[in-house]
């Protein structure tokens, strides 16, 4: 087991700004986010993008770890079905997403906090709308509360 301090959310008197970790695939969604940049589209600054080669690389543990470390939401972006640069990694991501969504639900993590989106390299505008939409939904949900859980459960989440 990993020796690590769990990080807790800031004091409640601060205005709540959701923090969302995004895993974007190198070929479609990361490029779409680049395109949103070169097109100077404006969107909410709440998302931290981590680049992976394929959405199929998103280990469910990454998602659990992000929630355990204080993320209020996790977004996965991959290529559209049939468009995966590695043929079918996005299908694997979809499979894992559905399973993980059920696990998270049992832990009391709302569906809106965990999202999978297909965004092609040409869809910079979609990056903007997905991020804005997700930030608003997570903002409405408020900070992720894992405090109700026992320390054991928290440790399990932390892998």
């Amino acid at each position: 087991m990993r020796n690590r301090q769990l990080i807790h959310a800031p004091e409640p008197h601060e205005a709540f700004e959701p923090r969302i970790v995004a895993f974007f695939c190198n070929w479609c969604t990361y490029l779409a986010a680049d395109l949103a940049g070169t097109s100077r589209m404006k969107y909410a600054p709440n998302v931290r993008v981590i680049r992976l080669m394929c959405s199929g690389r998103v280990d469910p543990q990454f998602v659990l770890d992000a929630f355990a470390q204080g993320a209020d939401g996790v977004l996965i972006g991959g290529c559209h079905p049939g468009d995966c640069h590695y043929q079918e990694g996005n299908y694997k991501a979809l499979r894992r997403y559905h399973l993980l969504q059920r696990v998270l639900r049992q832990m009391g993590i709302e569906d809106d906090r965990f999202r999978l989106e297909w965004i092609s390299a040409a869809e910079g505008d979609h990056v903007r709308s997905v991020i804005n939409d997700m930030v608003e939904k997570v903002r409405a949900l408020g900070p992720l509360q894992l405090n109700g859980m026992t320390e054991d459960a928290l440790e399990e989440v932390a892998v």
Partner: protein
Amino acid sequence: MPDTRRPTNGSDTDGIRIGVYVCHCGTNIAGTVDVKAISEYAATLPGVVVARTYKYMCSDPGQALIQQDIRDLRLNRIVVASCSPLLHEPTFRRALDRVGLNPFLLQMVNIREHVSWVHLDKPAATAKTNDLVRGAVRRVARHKPLQKRRVPINPSVLVVGGGIAGIHAALTLADAGKHVYLVEREPTIGGHMAKFDKTFPTLDCAACILTPKMTAVGSHPLITLWTYSEVLKVSGYVGNYRVQVRRKPRYIIEDLCLGCQECITACVYKEGKTRDEFNLGLSKRKPVYLPFPQAVPQKVVIDPETCIEFKSGKCKKTCIEACGERKAIDFKQKESLEEIEVGTIILATGFTTFNAARNAYYGYGRYPNVYTSLEVERLINASGPTSGELVLRDGTRPKAVGIIHCVGSRDANTNRWCSKVCCMYSLKLAHLIKERTGADIFNFYIDMRTPGKGYEEFYDRLLDEGVHFVRGRVAEVTEWAAHPSEKGKLIIRAEDTLAAFVRRIPVDMVVLSVGLEPQPDAQAVRRLFNISCSNEGWFLERHPKLAPVSTFTEGVYIAGACQGPKDIPDTVAQAGAAAAEALALVDAQFVELEPYTAFISEEECSGCKSCIPLCPYQAISFVEEKKKATINEVLCKGCGTCVAGCPSGSIQQNFFEDEEIFDEIEGVLAYA
């Protein structure tokens, strides 16, 4: 579950010496992000020895700054916070390499495309940048030195599409001594350009400049030309693609056919009865035909849909009689599949023209004398259905002609883009029609767009020739006569926005200047070759300015109008560029692949085999003796899907190891 990760803080940062470099990118980044605050913050992070900012980190002095620090401060990890890694990761990796630091000990932070260009609030953008930099600093400490893989490259090139782009690219490569496979779907090469009469602005005859190149393709010893063929399957990777090509049966043995066309004369059909595709239905052809007189290859085709022998089996087969000893006709021919191996691929699949019937108010398909521009190209072409005589369907010459620009371009109801070539070809058609018929010509335009060498001058010339120009989008084309003088004419109604009133102009012929669209099967083609399309359906280039003919798939290039509307000079330039890019790759004789492959730790592997079906490339196999899985590094493309799927955590991916990602996650989330 075994945890192979080392503790994040403490002892392991010993020996790790990180330099953080924050780029201003002029004001691109510094205008929205407080770069100084970021470097000050980065300097406080564990392991960071130095943090600096610079105006343009990618410039020579910027790179020199990093290299100097690597030498002087014995840095062994570098974080560059600047633009997208897709733009400058190779630049900074090379900079590291040149001073002897392994290039993979670098982590880039994308604070331009992902921060400064998309956010307005400076404190929020700066806070986000801090998080990203912290993630990168944590991650880079975990980086390991990696080596790129070198694989030999197959010098052969596949060119898909035999229009002017494909022809030019194929000839360039073949002249450089490379073997080229040119695959064309139609029975002849030549593409759209073969249909044109003259080309703007010089008015050279299209055939005179194109057909010699077509012939050169047909006779080049290093070009394997497969017309009437389509690419079915593509596998492999840069330098080593395997391609399956389907050769449709033309019911003619190509090696035996001399192109004498005696079979066409002898066909039991005395007159053609089938729509002639090459002339866009303006003439009829027989079931056995040559697409056009200068077709390459000069081999006839039999169309099984209309040939009596195929329909009933009871034809007298006069064609076989006429062919005689040559025995080139084979009604039993079957399609064949060819497997080829090539190192690089150039896509030059071209465009299609807008279907004018979609704009119902212009009457195309309803009024016989409304033509598309491409049909008029055939009408005025000396080798066209009327031998170059511009006549209406009833055989009379038009006295007044209206040319409507932007049909299926710059239109919110159809296509928003400017098709770029229509203004110029409309001018060219106006000139040619006037020259042939002396008719009054009215051009209806939104804006005249004539940038290009000699283009504006050509426009000026047309103005001098007395061609009329009306500025305004045409509302409708109608037969309804408001005045006896309009009887039997087509009336064009348009607002003249310069004179500010609505005009009705009666004409005998309407030419719709149709825009360019992606090929209807562009999506299927892009999937086949694993490349991307823009929203409109044009193939997406790697970088709009700096890599205009490359794609995101290494070794696959694009040329011509499949990438976006363009005229012949631009198309030829792109085809040459694509050929040069392919040559540069091929002539290096080997290609370097990113080392992002996955590998299995034998001690951890439980032999459960769950990774094996996850790999679409069959790169994972099971070693029976050891009861362990193993990954073939040559076949692995580095997606990491097996890594995420391994239940025992025994698979890792170079540069994307679990601990690297975990540290990045924790880094971006840790409160400052």
